[in-house]
Protein backbone atom coordinates (compact mmCIF):
# COMPACT_ATOMS: atom_id res chain seq x y z
CA UNK A 1 0.00 0.00 0.00
CA UNK A 2 1.22 3.48 -0.93
CA UNK A 3 -0.26 6.76 0.21
CA UNK A 4 -0.77 9.86 -1.90
CA UNK A 5 -2.17 12.92 -0.21
CA UNK A 6 -1.49 16.32 1.33
CA UNK A 7 0.39 16.04 4.60
CA UNK A 8 1.34 18.64 7.18
CA UNK A 9 4.82 19.94 7.94
CA UNK A 10 5.07 19.66 11.72
CA UNK A 11 8.67 20.79 12.14
CA UNK A 12 11.37 22.54 10.13
CA UNK A 13 14.98 22.58 11.24
CA UNK A 14 18.11 24.01 9.66
CA UNK A 15 21.10 21.66 9.92
CA UNK A 16 23.71 23.58 7.96
CA UNK A 17 23.92 26.37 5.39
CA UNK A 18 22.03 24.51 2.71
CA UNK A 19 20.71 21.48 4.58
CA UNK A 20 17.31 21.28 6.25
CA UNK A 21 15.28 18.72 8.13
CA UNK A 22 11.52 18.56 7.64
CA UNK A 23 9.10 16.53 9.72
CA UNK A 24 5.72 15.51 8.31
CA UNK A 25 2.69 13.95 9.99
CA UNK A 26 1.43 10.87 8.21
CA UNK A 27 0.63 7.88 10.42
CA UNK A 28 0.15 5.72 7.32
CA UNK A 29 3.49 6.43 5.67
CA UNK A 30 5.25 6.39 9.03
CA UNK A 31 3.83 3.00 9.99
CA UNK A 32 4.85 1.28 6.78
CA UNK A 33 8.16 3.04 6.06
CA UNK A 34 11.25 0.84 5.77
CA UNK A 35 14.90 2.00 5.76
CA UNK A 36 16.04 2.83 2.23
CA UNK A 37 12.56 3.72 1.11
CA UNK A 38 11.72 7.24 -0.04
CA UNK A 39 8.82 9.60 -0.67
CA UNK A 40 7.97 11.75 -3.68
CA UNK A 41 7.26 15.31 -2.63
CA UNK A 42 5.54 17.80 -4.88
CA UNK A 43 7.55 20.94 -4.13
CA UNK A 44 5.17 23.46 -5.69
CA UNK A 45 1.51 23.98 -6.51
CA UNK A 46 2.24 25.04 -10.07
CA UNK A 47 4.41 23.31 -12.66
CA UNK A 48 7.81 24.63 -11.51
CA UNK A 49 9.18 22.06 -11.19
CA UNK A 50 6.81 19.68 -12.96
CA UNK A 51 7.81 16.44 -11.27
CA UNK A 52 7.70 15.72 -7.57
CA UNK A 53 11.14 15.19 -5.99
CA UNK A 54 12.38 12.03 -4.27
CA UNK A 55 13.70 12.15 -0.69
CA UNK A 56 14.79 9.25 1.50
CA UNK A 57 12.97 8.70 4.73
CA UNK A 58 15.42 9.74 7.44
CA UNK A 59 13.54 8.69 10.52
CA UNK A 60 10.10 7.78 11.78
CA UNK A 61 8.29 8.21 15.07
CA UNK A 62 5.57 5.59 15.40
CA UNK A 63 4.17 7.29 18.49
CA UNK A 64 3.53 10.64 16.84
CA UNK A 65 2.92 9.24 13.36
CA UNK A 66 5.62 11.53 12.02
CA UNK A 67 8.47 10.88 9.61
CA UNK A 68 11.27 13.18 8.59
CA UNK A 69 13.61 13.87 5.70
CA UNK A 70 16.89 15.72 5.50
CA UNK A 71 17.59 17.55 2.27
CA UNK A 72 20.13 19.80 0.67
CA UNK A 73 19.16 22.81 -1.43
CA UNK A 74 20.12 21.87 -4.91
CA UNK A 75 17.95 23.56 -7.52
CA UNK A 76 14.43 24.75 -8.11
CA UNK A 77 12.47 22.07 -6.22
CA UNK A 78 14.61 21.89 -3.11
CA UNK A 79 14.67 25.69 -2.93
CA UNK A 80 10.89 25.76 -2.82
CA UNK A 81 10.93 22.99 -0.22
CA UNK A 82 13.22 25.13 1.93
CA UNK A 83 10.60 27.90 1.81
CA UNK A 84 7.96 25.71 3.43
CA UNK A 85 6.79 26.79 6.87
CA UNK A 86 5.58 24.64 9.74
CA UNK A 87 1.88 23.72 9.36
CA UNK A 88 2.01 24.08 5.58
CA UNK A 89 0.45 21.16 3.76
CA UNK A 90 2.23 19.52 0.89
CA UNK A 91 1.56 16.67 -1.49
CA UNK A 92 3.52 13.48 -0.72
CA UNK A 93 3.49 9.97 -2.17
CA UNK A 94 5.05 7.12 -0.28
CA UNK A 95 6.58 5.01 1.02
CA UNK A 96 8.36 4.06 -2.21
CA UNK A 97 11.04 1.65 -3.36
CA UNK A 98 12.30 -1.69 -2.11
CA UNK A 99 14.47 -0.38 0.72
CA UNK A 100 17.06 -2.33 2.72
CA UNK A 101 16.49 -5.43 4.79
CA UNK A 102 17.48 -4.79 8.41
CA UNK A 103 20.97 -6.09 9.26
CA UNK A 104 20.92 -9.34 11.20
CA UNK A 105 23.47 -11.59 12.84
CA UNK A 106 26.70 -9.89 13.94
CA UNK A 107 28.92 -9.96 10.86
CA UNK A 108 30.57 -6.50 10.70
CA UNK A 109 29.19 -3.98 8.21
CA UNK A 110 30.26 -0.65 6.78
CA UNK A 111 27.89 2.16 5.92
CA UNK A 112 29.21 4.46 3.20
CA UNK A 113 27.09 7.59 2.90
CA UNK A 114 27.85 10.56 0.72
CA UNK A 115 25.83 13.75 1.24
CA UNK A 116 22.21 13.04 0.37
CA UNK A 117 22.99 9.35 0.84
CA UNK A 118 23.39 9.58 4.59
CA UNK A 119 19.71 9.80 5.67
CA UNK A 120 18.66 6.32 4.50
CA UNK A 121 21.78 4.74 6.01
CA UNK A 122 21.12 6.43 9.34
CA UNK A 123 17.60 4.99 9.28
CA UNK A 124 18.94 1.51 8.44
CA UNK A 125 21.59 1.72 11.16
CA UNK A 126 19.26 2.95 13.88
CA UNK A 127 16.55 0.37 13.13
CA UNK A 128 19.00 -2.51 12.88
CA UNK A 129 20.44 -1.61 16.28
CA UNK A 130 16.91 -1.38 17.70
CA UNK A 131 16.35 -4.91 16.46
CA UNK A 132 19.44 -6.14 18.25
CA UNK A 133 22.29 -5.80 15.81
CA UNK A 134 25.47 -4.87 17.76
CA UNK A 135 26.21 -1.17 17.24
CA UNK A 136 29.95 -1.70 17.74
CA UNK A 137 30.03 -3.84 14.58
CA UNK A 138 28.91 -0.92 12.46
CA UNK A 139 31.41 1.43 10.84
CA UNK A 140 29.64 4.46 9.41
CA UNK A 141 31.44 6.67 6.91
CA UNK A 142 29.65 9.99 6.68
CA UNK A 143 31.05 12.17 3.91
CA UNK A 144 30.30 15.49 2.30
CA UNK A 145 31.98 17.75 -0.22
CA UNK A 146 32.57 20.45 2.35
CA UNK A 147 31.47 21.55 5.82
CA UNK A 148 28.66 23.77 4.64
CA UNK A 149 26.71 20.88 3.12
CA UNK A 150 27.29 18.09 5.58
CA UNK A 151 24.16 16.17 6.63
CA UNK A 152 25.17 15.43 10.23
CA UNK A 153 22.62 16.57 12.80
CA UNK A 154 24.52 14.85 15.61
CA UNK A 155 22.38 11.76 15.85
CA UNK A 156 24.91 9.40 14.29
CA UNK A 157 27.34 10.10 17.12
CA UNK A 158 24.75 8.95 19.67
CA UNK A 159 24.37 5.48 18.14
CA UNK A 160 27.52 4.04 19.69
CA UNK A 161 28.82 3.07 16.28
CA UNK A 162 32.29 3.50 14.85
CA UNK A 163 31.75 6.82 13.08
CA UNK A 164 34.12 8.14 10.42
CA UNK A 165 33.33 11.68 9.32
CA UNK A 166 35.07 13.08 6.24
CA UNK A 167 34.85 15.81 3.65
CA UNK A 168 36.53 16.14 0.27
CA UNK A 169 38.21 19.38 1.26
CA UNK A 170 38.95 18.42 4.87
CA UNK A 171 36.80 21.28 6.19
CA UNK A 172 34.79 18.76 8.21
CA UNK A 173 36.21 15.60 9.79
CA UNK A 174 38.98 13.74 7.99
CA UNK A 175 40.13 14.96 4.64
CA UNK A 176 39.17 12.66 1.78
CA UNK A 177 36.26 11.12 -0.04
CA UNK A 178 33.93 8.42 1.22
CA UNK A 179 35.65 6.03 -1.21
CA UNK A 180 39.07 6.87 0.26
CA UNK A 181 37.83 6.05 3.76
CA UNK A 182 36.14 2.86 2.58
CA UNK A 183 39.35 1.76 0.87
CA UNK A 184 41.04 1.71 4.29
CA UNK A 185 38.21 0.17 6.27
CA UNK A 186 37.00 -2.49 3.87
CA UNK A 187 37.97 -6.15 3.90
CA UNK A 188 36.30 -9.35 2.72
CA UNK A 189 34.67 -9.85 6.12
CA UNK A 190 32.61 -6.68 5.91
CA UNK A 191 29.42 -6.09 3.97
CA UNK A 192 28.97 -2.61 2.49
CA UNK A 193 25.79 -0.53 2.50
CA UNK A 194 26.32 2.50 0.29
CA UNK A 195 24.20 5.45 -0.78
CA UNK A 196 25.20 8.61 -2.63
CA UNK A 197 25.87 10.05 -6.06
CA UNK A 198 26.34 7.63 -8.97
CA UNK A 199 30.02 8.49 -9.34
CA UNK A 200 30.73 7.40 -5.77
CA UNK A 201 28.62 4.25 -6.03
CA UNK A 202 30.35 3.19 -9.24
CA UNK A 203 33.73 3.36 -7.48
CA UNK A 204 32.40 1.54 -4.43
CA UNK A 205 30.92 -1.18 -6.62
CA UNK A 206 34.33 -2.02 -8.10
CA UNK A 207 35.99 -1.64 -4.71
CA UNK A 208 33.59 -4.25 -3.32
CA UNK A 209 34.50 -6.52 -6.21
CA UNK A 210 38.22 -5.98 -5.70
CA UNK A 211 38.01 -6.67 -1.96
CA UNK A 212 35.71 -9.54 -2.90
CA UNK A 213 32.95 -8.95 -0.43
CA UNK A 214 29.24 -8.20 -0.69
CA UNK A 215 27.29 -4.94 -0.67
CA UNK A 216 24.02 -3.16 -1.24
CA UNK A 217 23.95 0.10 -3.19
CA UNK A 218 21.13 2.65 -3.08
CA UNK A 219 20.99 4.67 -6.31
CA UNK A 220 19.79 8.07 -7.42
CA UNK A 221 17.97 8.85 -10.66
CA UNK A 222 15.68 11.44 -12.14
CA UNK A 223 12.22 10.28 -11.17
CA UNK A 224 9.13 11.52 -12.97
CA UNK A 225 6.68 9.31 -11.10
CA UNK A 226 8.57 7.46 -8.37
CA UNK A 227 6.23 4.46 -8.28
CA UNK A 228 6.98 2.50 -11.41
CA UNK A 229 4.59 3.66 -14.09
CA UNK A 230 6.80 5.73 -16.41
CA UNK A 231 10.08 3.78 -16.78
CA UNK A 232 11.85 7.12 -16.75
CA UNK A 233 14.24 6.19 -13.95
CA UNK A 234 15.34 2.94 -15.57
CA UNK A 235 19.01 1.95 -15.36
CA UNK A 236 20.99 -0.78 -17.09
CA UNK A 237 21.53 -3.96 -15.12
CA UNK A 238 23.16 -7.26 -16.02
CA UNK A 239 20.53 -9.35 -17.81
CA UNK A 240 19.56 -12.53 -15.96
CA UNK A 241 19.75 -15.82 -17.85
CA UNK A 242 15.99 -16.07 -17.47
CA UNK A 243 15.38 -13.19 -19.87
CA UNK A 244 13.62 -14.49 -22.98
CA UNK A 245 14.19 -13.10 -26.47
CA UNK A 246 13.46 -9.40 -26.88
CA UNK A 247 12.59 -7.31 -29.89
CA UNK A 248 15.55 -4.97 -29.69
CA UNK A 249 17.97 -7.52 -28.16
CA UNK A 250 19.84 -5.04 -25.99
CA UNK A 251 22.89 -6.16 -24.00
CA UNK A 252 21.29 -4.85 -20.84
CA UNK A 253 18.19 -5.39 -18.76
CA UNK A 254 16.44 -2.24 -17.56
CA UNK A 255 15.27 -1.94 -13.99
CA UNK A 256 13.36 0.93 -12.44
CA UNK A 257 15.31 2.63 -9.67
CA UNK A 258 12.05 3.75 -8.06
CA UNK A 259 10.39 0.36 -7.85
CA UNK A 260 12.99 -2.41 -8.43
CA UNK A 261 15.39 -0.23 -6.41
CA UNK A 262 16.61 2.18 -5.23
CA UNK A 263 18.63 -0.58 -3.49
CA UNK A 264 20.55 -2.91 -5.78
CA UNK A 265 23.05 -5.69 -5.10
CA UNK A 266 26.69 -4.87 -5.74
CA UNK A 267 27.60 -6.12 -9.22
CA UNK A 268 24.06 -5.85 -10.51
CA UNK A 269 24.27 -2.40 -12.08
CA UNK A 270 25.89 -1.62 -15.44
CA UNK A 271 27.44 1.80 -14.81
CA UNK A 272 27.72 4.54 -17.42
Amino acid at each position, binding site marked *: *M*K*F*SDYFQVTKKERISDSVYRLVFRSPDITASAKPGQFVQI*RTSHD*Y*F*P*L*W*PRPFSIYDTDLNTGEFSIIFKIFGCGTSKLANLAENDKI*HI*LGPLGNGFDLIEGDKPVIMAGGGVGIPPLYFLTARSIDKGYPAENITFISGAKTKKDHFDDGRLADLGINLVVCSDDGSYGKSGTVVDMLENELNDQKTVYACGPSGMLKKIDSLIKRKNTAGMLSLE*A*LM*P*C*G*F*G*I*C*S*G*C*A*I*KTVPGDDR*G*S*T*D*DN*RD*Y*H*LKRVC*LDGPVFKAGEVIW*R
Partner: protein
Amino acid sequence: MSVNLSVELAGLRLKNPVLTASGCFAYGEEASEIYDISRLGGIVTKSLTYLPREGHPPPKVRETDAGMLNAIGLSNVGIENFINEKLPFISKYDTACIVSIAGSTVDEYERLAVRLAEHENVDAIEVNISCPNVDEGGLEFGAHSRAAGEVIARIRKRFPRPVIAKLSPNVTDIKEIAKSVADSGADIISLINTLVGTSIDIEKRTFHLSNIYGGLSGPAVRPVALAMVYKVAQVVKIPIIGIGGISTTSDALEFLLAGASAIQVGTAMFIDPKAPLRIIDGLGNYLVKHKENNINDIIGKVGIDEF
Protein backbone atom coordinates in the same frame (compact mmCIF):
# COMPACT_ATOMS: atom_id res chain seq x y z
CA MET B 1 -28.75 16.17 -7.78
CA SER B 2 -27.23 13.05 -9.32
CA VAL B 3 -25.27 13.55 -12.51
CA ASN B 4 -24.46 11.15 -15.31
CA LEU B 5 -20.79 10.93 -16.21
CA SER B 6 -21.00 7.79 -18.31
CA VAL B 7 -20.28 8.03 -22.00
CA GLU B 8 -20.38 5.59 -24.87
CA LEU B 9 -17.92 5.80 -27.74
CA ALA B 10 -18.75 3.56 -30.70
CA GLY B 11 -19.99 0.86 -28.35
CA LEU B 12 -17.20 1.34 -25.84
CA ARG B 13 -19.00 2.03 -22.56
CA LEU B 14 -17.14 4.09 -19.97
CA LYS B 15 -18.51 4.78 -16.47
CA ASN B 16 -16.85 8.17 -16.77
CA PRO B 17 -14.87 9.88 -19.54
CA VAL B 18 -11.53 9.81 -17.73
CA LEU B 19 -8.91 7.31 -18.92
CA THR B 20 -5.22 6.94 -18.23
CA ALA B 21 -2.90 7.52 -21.19
CA SER B 22 -0.66 4.84 -22.65
CA GLY B 23 2.78 4.66 -21.08
CA CYS B 24 1.62 6.70 -18.11
CA PHE B 25 -0.02 3.87 -16.18
CA ALA B 26 2.11 0.83 -17.09
CA TYR B 27 -0.37 -2.07 -16.78
CA GLY B 28 -2.23 -0.81 -13.75
CA GLU B 29 -0.55 -2.76 -10.95
CA GLU B 30 1.44 0.12 -9.47
CA ALA B 31 -1.47 2.56 -9.26
CA SER B 32 -3.68 -0.16 -7.77
CA GLU B 33 -1.45 0.01 -4.70
CA ILE B 34 -2.48 3.64 -4.22
CA TYR B 35 -6.23 3.53 -4.90
CA ASP B 36 -9.02 1.43 -6.35
CA ILE B 37 -8.50 1.72 -10.09
CA SER B 38 -12.07 0.58 -10.69
CA ARG B 39 -12.98 4.23 -10.23
CA LEU B 40 -11.36 5.05 -13.56
CA GLY B 41 -13.39 5.23 -16.75
CA GLY B 42 -10.75 3.04 -18.27
CA ILE B 43 -7.11 2.10 -18.53
CA VAL B 44 -4.93 2.32 -21.61
CA THR B 45 -1.90 0.04 -21.29
CA LYS B 46 1.69 0.78 -22.23
CA SER B 47 2.04 0.16 -25.98
CA LEU B 48 2.75 -3.50 -26.61
CA THR B 49 4.97 -4.95 -29.31
CA TYR B 50 4.95 -8.61 -30.24
CA LEU B 51 8.19 -9.45 -28.45
CA PRO B 52 9.26 -7.79 -25.19
CA ARG B 53 11.40 -4.65 -25.55
CA GLU B 54 13.96 -3.09 -23.27
CA GLY B 55 13.66 0.24 -25.06
CA HIS B 56 16.21 3.04 -25.27
CA PRO B 57 19.11 3.23 -22.83
CA PRO B 58 19.00 5.87 -20.07
CA PRO B 59 18.75 8.83 -19.75
CA LYS B 60 15.18 8.50 -20.97
CA VAL B 61 13.45 11.55 -19.50
CA ARG B 62 13.98 15.23 -18.91
CA GLU B 63 11.93 18.03 -17.40
CA THR B 64 11.18 21.09 -19.53
CA ASP B 65 9.18 24.23 -18.75
CA ALA B 66 5.70 22.94 -17.80
CA GLY B 67 6.46 19.76 -19.70
CA MET B 68 8.77 16.79 -20.05
CA LEU B 69 10.61 14.88 -22.74
CA ASN B 70 10.60 11.10 -22.82
CA ALA B 71 12.48 8.62 -24.94
CA ILE B 72 11.35 5.42 -23.28
CA GLY B 73 11.51 3.58 -26.58
CA LEU B 74 8.50 1.36 -26.07
CA SER B 75 9.89 -0.69 -23.19
CA ASN B 76 7.18 -3.28 -22.75
CA VAL B 77 6.66 -6.89 -21.67
CA GLY B 78 5.52 -8.10 -25.08
CA ILE B 79 2.09 -9.38 -26.03
CA GLU B 80 2.41 -12.90 -24.61
CA ASN B 81 3.62 -11.80 -21.18
CA PHE B 82 0.89 -9.18 -21.21
CA ILE B 83 -1.82 -11.71 -21.92
CA ASN B 84 -0.48 -14.18 -19.37
CA GLU B 85 0.55 -11.88 -16.52
CA LYS B 86 -0.99 -8.42 -16.92
CA LEU B 87 -4.38 -8.89 -18.56
CA PRO B 88 -5.70 -11.22 -15.83
CA PHE B 89 -4.82 -8.56 -13.27
CA ILE B 90 -6.56 -5.71 -15.10
CA SER B 91 -9.57 -7.92 -15.70
CA LYS B 92 -10.19 -8.13 -11.97
CA TYR B 93 -11.20 -4.49 -12.01
CA ASP B 94 -14.47 -3.02 -13.19
CA THR B 95 -12.95 -0.53 -15.63
CA ALA B 96 -12.54 -0.52 -19.40
CA CYS B 97 -9.38 -2.28 -20.56
CA ILE B 98 -7.92 -0.63 -23.64
CA VAL B 99 -4.75 -2.21 -24.96
CA SER B 100 -2.31 -0.03 -26.85
CA ILE B 101 -0.36 -1.73 -29.62
CA ALA B 102 2.72 -0.64 -31.57
CA GLY B 103 4.41 -2.30 -34.50
CA SER B 104 7.41 -1.90 -36.74
CA THR B 105 5.49 -3.35 -39.67
CA VAL B 106 1.84 -3.54 -40.65
CA ASP B 107 2.11 -7.29 -40.12
CA GLU B 108 3.22 -6.86 -36.53
CA TYR B 109 0.20 -4.64 -35.85
CA GLU B 110 -2.01 -7.26 -37.42
CA ARG B 111 -0.53 -10.11 -35.41
CA LEU B 112 -1.02 -8.11 -32.22
CA ALA B 113 -4.67 -7.45 -33.09
CA VAL B 114 -5.24 -11.14 -33.81
CA ARG B 115 -3.85 -12.18 -30.43
CA LEU B 116 -5.94 -9.60 -28.59
CA ALA B 117 -9.13 -10.43 -30.50
CA GLU B 118 -9.19 -13.77 -28.67
CA HIS B 119 -9.59 -12.01 -25.33
CA GLU B 120 -13.10 -10.73 -24.63
CA ASN B 121 -11.87 -8.69 -21.68
CA VAL B 122 -9.85 -6.46 -24.00
CA ASP B 123 -12.57 -3.87 -24.54
CA ALA B 124 -10.75 -1.94 -27.25
CA ILE B 125 -7.42 -1.56 -28.99
CA GLU B 126 -5.65 1.78 -29.21
CA VAL B 127 -3.32 1.81 -32.19
CA ASN B 128 -0.18 3.82 -31.56
CA ILE B 129 0.81 4.84 -35.06
CA SER B 130 3.59 7.16 -33.87
CA CYS B 131 6.11 4.42 -34.49
CA PRO B 132 8.89 4.14 -37.05
CA ASN B 133 7.73 2.08 -40.01
CA VAL B 134 10.61 -0.28 -40.73
CA ASP B 135 9.26 -1.14 -44.18
CA GLU B 136 9.35 2.56 -45.07
CA GLY B 137 12.77 3.39 -43.70
CA GLY B 138 11.70 4.39 -40.23
CA LEU B 139 9.20 7.02 -41.27
CA GLU B 140 6.36 7.19 -38.75
CA PHE B 141 3.15 5.39 -39.74
CA GLY B 142 1.30 8.36 -38.32
CA ALA B 143 3.12 10.83 -40.55
CA HIS B 144 1.21 10.03 -43.70
CA SER B 145 -2.46 9.39 -44.24
CA ARG B 146 -1.93 6.44 -46.53
CA ALA B 147 0.29 4.46 -44.16
CA ALA B 148 -1.91 5.41 -41.22
CA GLY B 149 -5.03 4.27 -43.06
CA GLU B 150 -3.43 1.00 -44.10
CA VAL B 151 -2.54 0.01 -40.53
CA ILE B 152 -6.02 0.80 -39.30
CA ALA B 153 -7.74 -1.05 -42.16
CA ARG B 154 -5.72 -4.21 -41.48
CA ILE B 155 -6.40 -4.13 -37.75
CA ARG B 156 -10.06 -3.32 -38.29
CA LYS B 157 -10.49 -6.62 -40.15
CA ARG B 158 -8.93 -8.61 -37.31
CA PHE B 159 -10.36 -7.07 -34.14
CA PRO B 160 -14.11 -7.37 -33.46
CA ARG B 161 -14.37 -4.61 -30.85
CA PRO B 162 -13.66 -0.86 -31.08
CA VAL B 163 -10.40 0.18 -32.72
CA ILE B 164 -8.99 3.53 -31.59
CA ALA B 165 -6.52 5.27 -33.90
CA LYS B 166 -4.10 7.37 -31.85
CA LEU B 167 -2.73 10.21 -33.96
CA SER B 168 0.66 11.85 -33.95
CA PRO B 169 0.62 15.67 -33.72
CA ASN B 170 3.82 15.98 -35.76
CA VAL B 171 2.02 16.46 -39.04
CA THR B 172 1.15 19.30 -41.41
CA ASP B 173 -2.53 18.49 -41.65
CA ILE B 174 -4.10 16.51 -38.81
CA LYS B 175 -7.51 16.69 -40.51
CA GLU B 176 -6.23 14.71 -43.47
CA ILE B 177 -4.84 11.93 -41.25
CA ALA B 178 -8.04 11.87 -39.19
CA LYS B 179 -10.20 11.51 -42.29
CA SER B 180 -7.98 8.74 -43.59
CA VAL B 181 -8.14 6.60 -40.45
CA ALA B 182 -11.89 7.24 -40.15
CA ASP B 183 -12.41 6.13 -43.74
CA SER B 184 -10.24 3.09 -43.05
CA GLY B 185 -12.61 1.93 -40.33
CA ALA B 186 -11.32 3.44 -37.10
CA ASP B 187 -14.20 3.54 -34.61
CA ILE B 188 -12.61 6.21 -32.43
CA ILE B 189 -9.75 8.70 -32.80
CA SER B 190 -7.53 9.64 -29.87
CA LEU B 191 -5.01 12.49 -29.95
CA ILE B 192 -2.41 13.77 -29.34
CA ASN B 193 0.67 11.65 -28.89
CA THR B 194 3.84 13.57 -27.98
CA LEU B 195 5.49 16.36 -29.97
CA VAL B 196 9.06 15.76 -31.07
CA GLY B 197 11.49 17.75 -28.96
CA THR B 198 14.93 17.77 -27.42
CA SER B 199 17.10 19.55 -24.87
CA ILE B 200 20.82 20.03 -24.41
CA ASP B 201 23.12 20.02 -21.40
CA ILE B 202 25.10 23.23 -21.96
CA GLU B 203 27.86 22.22 -19.56
CA LYS B 204 28.45 18.73 -20.98
CA ARG B 205 27.47 19.91 -24.48
CA THR B 206 25.53 16.73 -25.12
CA PHE B 207 21.85 15.94 -25.43
CA HIS B 208 20.03 15.13 -22.21
CA LEU B 209 18.42 12.06 -23.77
CA SER B 210 20.41 9.08 -25.04
CA ASN B 211 18.06 9.03 -28.04
CA ILE B 212 18.69 12.74 -28.83
CA TYR B 213 14.97 13.30 -29.52
CA GLY B 214 12.16 12.71 -27.09
CA GLY B 215 8.42 13.17 -26.97
CA LEU B 216 7.22 16.39 -25.36
CA SER B 217 4.20 16.05 -23.09
CA GLY B 218 2.57 17.79 -20.15
CA PRO B 219 0.79 21.12 -19.62
CA ALA B 220 3.08 22.84 -22.14
CA VAL B 221 1.50 21.00 -25.09
CA ARG B 222 -2.15 21.41 -24.06
CA PRO B 223 -2.97 24.34 -26.38
CA VAL B 224 -1.59 22.41 -29.38
CA ALA B 225 -3.54 19.28 -28.43
CA LEU B 226 -6.75 21.21 -27.90
CA ALA B 227 -6.45 22.90 -31.30
CA MET B 228 -5.95 19.53 -33.00
CA VAL B 229 -8.88 17.94 -31.19
CA TYR B 230 -11.14 20.79 -32.26
CA LYS B 231 -9.89 20.60 -35.87
CA VAL B 232 -10.50 16.86 -36.04
CA ALA B 233 -13.93 17.25 -34.44
CA GLN B 234 -14.87 19.51 -37.36
CA VAL B 235 -14.10 16.89 -40.00
CA VAL B 236 -14.93 13.43 -38.62
CA LYS B 237 -18.17 11.97 -37.26
CA ILE B 238 -16.59 9.27 -35.09
CA PRO B 239 -15.98 9.96 -31.38
CA ILE B 240 -12.74 11.54 -30.22
CA ILE B 241 -10.63 11.01 -27.11
CA GLY B 242 -8.67 14.12 -26.12
CA ILE B 243 -5.11 13.78 -24.84
CA GLY B 244 -2.39 16.30 -24.11
CA GLY B 245 -1.41 18.08 -20.94
CA ILE B 246 -4.66 17.37 -19.14
CA SER B 247 -3.96 17.82 -15.44
CA THR B 248 -7.04 19.45 -13.95
CA THR B 249 -10.82 19.39 -14.27
CA SER B 250 -10.71 22.64 -16.17
CA ASP B 251 -8.23 21.16 -18.65
CA ALA B 252 -10.49 18.15 -19.17
CA LEU B 253 -13.52 20.40 -19.70
CA GLU B 254 -11.72 22.33 -22.44
CA PHE B 255 -11.30 19.10 -24.39
CA LEU B 256 -14.87 17.92 -23.82
CA LEU B 257 -16.21 21.31 -24.92
CA ALA B 258 -13.96 21.16 -27.99
CA GLY B 259 -15.59 17.88 -29.02
CA ALA B 260 -13.83 15.05 -27.19
CA SER B 261 -16.18 12.40 -25.75
CA ALA B 262 -13.50 11.25 -23.30
CA ILE B 263 -10.02 12.28 -22.23
CA GLN B 264 -6.78 10.63 -21.15
CA VAL B 265 -4.49 11.70 -18.34
CA GLY B 266 -0.80 11.09 -19.03
CA THR B 267 2.03 13.13 -17.56
CA ALA B 268 -0.23 14.42 -14.77
CA MET B 269 -0.23 10.85 -13.40
CA PHE B 270 3.39 11.40 -12.40
CA ILE B 271 2.67 14.64 -10.60
CA ASP B 272 -0.34 13.25 -8.77
CA PRO B 273 -1.36 9.61 -9.23
CA LYS B 274 -4.87 10.57 -8.12
CA ALA B 275 -5.25 13.27 -10.80
CA PRO B 276 -7.81 11.21 -12.74
CA LEU B 277 -9.93 10.79 -9.60
CA ARG B 278 -9.81 14.52 -8.89
CA ILE B 279 -10.92 15.17 -12.47
CA ILE B 280 -13.79 12.69 -12.24
CA ASP B 281 -15.05 14.39 -9.07
CA GLY B 282 -14.43 17.80 -10.61
CA LEU B 283 -16.53 17.05 -13.68
CA GLY B 284 -19.45 16.11 -11.45
CA ASN B 285 -19.09 19.30 -9.44
CA TYR B 286 -18.93 21.39 -12.61
CA LEU B 287 -22.20 19.94 -13.84
CA VAL B 288 -23.88 20.52 -10.50
CA LYS B 289 -22.58 24.09 -10.39
CA HIS B 290 -24.03 24.69 -13.85
CA LYS B 291 -27.29 22.94 -13.00
CA GLU B 292 -26.69 20.27 -15.60
CA ASN B 293 -26.91 16.54 -15.05
CA ASN B 294 -25.35 14.82 -18.04
CA ILE B 295 -21.74 15.14 -19.17
CA ASN B 296 -22.82 14.22 -22.70
CA ASP B 297 -24.67 17.53 -22.91
CA ILE B 298 -21.46 19.54 -22.86
CA ILE B 299 -19.45 17.52 -25.37
CA GLY B 300 -18.59 19.75 -28.34
CA LYS B 301 -20.56 22.64 -26.90
CA VAL B 302 -17.90 25.34 -27.30
CA GLY B 303 -19.42 28.32 -29.08
CA ILE B 304 -17.90 31.04 -31.16
CA ASP B 305 -18.28 34.48 -29.61
CA GLU B 306 -19.17 37.57 -31.60
CA PHE B 307 -16.26 39.96 -31.40
